C-alpha cells in the first residue's frame, strides 16, 4: 500500500485511479495502482524508464485504447465517474482531459488552423462570429505564451516554428479545446534548456486554471514545477506525497535511492 502522506482532500480530487491494473497481452505494465490528482495542482510522476509512467498517463485520457492488446482493470474516475464505463465515448473524455506529447507534434497546417482545429470539430465555434473566433485564437496563444511571437503570422505554417515554439503551439492548441485537466508526457525532453524553462514557467501559470499531471524523468524539473510527486517502479506506486517531502525526506528506501540518483 503506497504511502499517502498529505494527500489532497477528496473534494479536491479531479482525477483518480482506483486499483488500476493495465496489461498489454500478458505483460503487466501497471499493477494495482491507486493515485489521485488535485485540482489546480501539478502532480509529477517520476520513475526509471519502463516503470509504467507513460502507460499510466495515457490511461488517464484513454489514449491507450488504440492498442489492441490493452486491458484495464479498476476504475479511472473523473469527478467520480469511471471514464472507462460503458457508453462513455473516449472523444468526450479527451476533450476534457487534454494531452501534450514528448515530441511536439503540430499539424502541417497554419498556426491558426492548428489552434482552432479542436474547437472547429467539437462544435465550440458554432454561433461564434469572426471576432469571437479571433478572440479564442488570441487568448489561447496568449495563455500559452506564444502570442507575441506569432501574432503577425498566424497564417504561416506551424512547421516554421522552433522546437520550443512548436511545443507552446501544441499547448495553445490543447488550451483552445477548453479542457479541465492537462496531461504532459515529458513535454520538455526534446527541447533546449531555454525553451524548457519557458515551458516550466508556463506550467506554473497554467496551474492556476487547470489541473496538471506531468510525467518527467528530469528530477530537478519535478522538484521545481510540481506540488505533488508520485514515484513509480516496475508498474507499482512506491510513494506519493508532497514534492518537498518526497525529495528531502522520502519514506521509502527505493524512493530515496532514486531521487538521490543512485539508479534510474
Amino acid at each position, binding site marked *: 500500500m503506497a504511502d499517502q502522506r498529505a494527500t489532497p482532500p477528496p473534494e479536491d480530487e479531479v482525477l483518480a485511479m482506483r486499483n488500476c491494473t493495465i496489461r498489454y497481452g500478458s505483460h503487466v505494465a501497471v499493477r494495482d495502482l491507486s493515485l489521485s490528482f488535485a485540482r489546480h495542482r501539478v502532480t509529477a510522476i517520476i520513475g526509471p524508464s519502463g516503470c509504467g509512467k507513460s502507460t499510466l498517463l495515457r490511461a488517464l485520457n484513454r489514449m491507450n485504447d488504440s492498442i489492441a492488446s490493452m486491458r484495464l482493470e479498476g476504475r479511472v474516475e473523473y469527478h467520480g465517474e469511471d471514464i472507462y464505463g460503458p457508453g462513455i465515448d473516449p472523444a468526450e473524455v479527451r476533450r476534457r482531459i487534454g494531452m501534450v*506529447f514528448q515530441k511536439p507534434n503540430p499539424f502541417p497546417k497554419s498556426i491558426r488552423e492548428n489552434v482552432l482545429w479542436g474547437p472547429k470539430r467539437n462544435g465550440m465555434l458554432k454561433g461564434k462570429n469572426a471576432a469571437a473566433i479571433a478572440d479564442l485564437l488570441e487568448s489561447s496563444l496568449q495563455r500559452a505564451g506564444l502570442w507575441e511571437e506569432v501574432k503577425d503570422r498566424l497564417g504561416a505554417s506551424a512547421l516554421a516554428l522552433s522546437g520550443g515554439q512548436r511545443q507552446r503551439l501544441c499547448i495553445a492548441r490543447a488550451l483552445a479545446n477548453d479542457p479541465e485537466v492537462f496531461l504532459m508526457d515529458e513535454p520538455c525532453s526534446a527541447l533546449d534548456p531555454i525553451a524548457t524553462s519557458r515551458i516550466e514557467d508556463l506550467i506554473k501559470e497554467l496551474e492556476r486554471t487547470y489541473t496538471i499531471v506531468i510525467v518527467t524523468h528530469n528530477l530537478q524539473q519535478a522538484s521545481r514545477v510540481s506540488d505533488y510527486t508520485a514515484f513509480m517502479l516496475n508498474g507499482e506506486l512506491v510513494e506519493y506525497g508532497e514534492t518537498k517531502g518526497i525529495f528531502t525526506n522520502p519514506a521509502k528506501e527505493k524512493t530515496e535511492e532514486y531521487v538521490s540518483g543512485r539508479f534510474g
Partner: protein
Amino acid sequence: MGKLIIGFLVASAFLSVFTTFGIIVVLVRESIPFFSTIPLDEFLFGTKWFPLAAQPSFGVLPLVAGTAHIVIGSAFIGLPLGLGSAIYLSEYASPRMRSILKPFLELLAGIPTVVYGFFALTFVTPLLRNVFPSIQVFNSLSAAIVVGIMILPTVASLCEDALRAVPRQLRDGGYALGATKYEVTSSIVVPGALSGIMASFILAISRAIGETMAVTLAAGGTANLSFNMLDGVQTMTAFIVSVSLGDTPRGTIGYQTIFAVALLLFVITLGLNLLSNRILKRYRESYE
C-alpha cells in the same frame, strides 16, 4: 577478367540510357518524313483524322479526344476507388484483413490487358446495354470502366504507402484533442499524404493513356470527336495497332502516321511521368 565484369556491369546500367535515346531517335527519325509534309499545327489542332483515305486529313484531335474519353472515364472509377481502398487498408483494416486484401489487389494488377479487353467486350458492354439501350458494341464507356479497374491497384498501393508514411504522432495529436477517427483521417492523414496521392493519380493517368489492348478490343476503331461515351472511339494507341495490323504499305504517309502519333504519345506520357516525379520531390511532405 575483373575489368570485363565491371565493364559488363557498367554497360548494363547504361543500357537504360541507350534505350531512352533509341526510342527518341527512332520516333523522331521516322516522324520527320511525316512532319515535312504535314505542318505541325495542322496535325496538332486539326479535327479530322482520315489518314488512309483517298482524300486524307491529318488532324490528330479525334485520337486525342478518344484517349481523353478513356482517361476521364477511368479516372472517375480508378482514382476514387483506389484512394478509398488505400484509406481502408491504411487506417481501418485489421492486419488480418490487410493480409487478405493486398494479395487480391496484386492479383487484379497482374491480369493482362487483353483479358480486361475481352471482359469489357463480353460482359461490361452487354451489362451496360440494360441501362443504356442505345449503346454500341464498341463504346468508350466500357473501355473506360475496365481501364479504371486496371489502374485501381496502382493507385491503391501508392496511396497506401503515402498514407502510412504520415507519422503516428500526428494522428495521436488529433485523437488527443477529442477527434473521431474520420476527422483524424480526413483532416490530418489524407492532407498529410497529399503529394504522394497526387503523384499516384498522375502516374495512373499516364498508364491509362498508354493502355492499348483493352481499348482496342472494347472501344473500336472509329476516330471521332464526340462526347458521347456510348459510341466507339479510337485512341492514339488503338490507332497505332490498327495500322500495324493492316496492310498499309511502308513508306506511305499513311504508314508514317504511326510514328507521328507514337511520338505524341511518348511526349505526353513522358511529360506526365516527369511531372509526377517533380511533385514527389518538391512537395514531399516533411513532417519535421
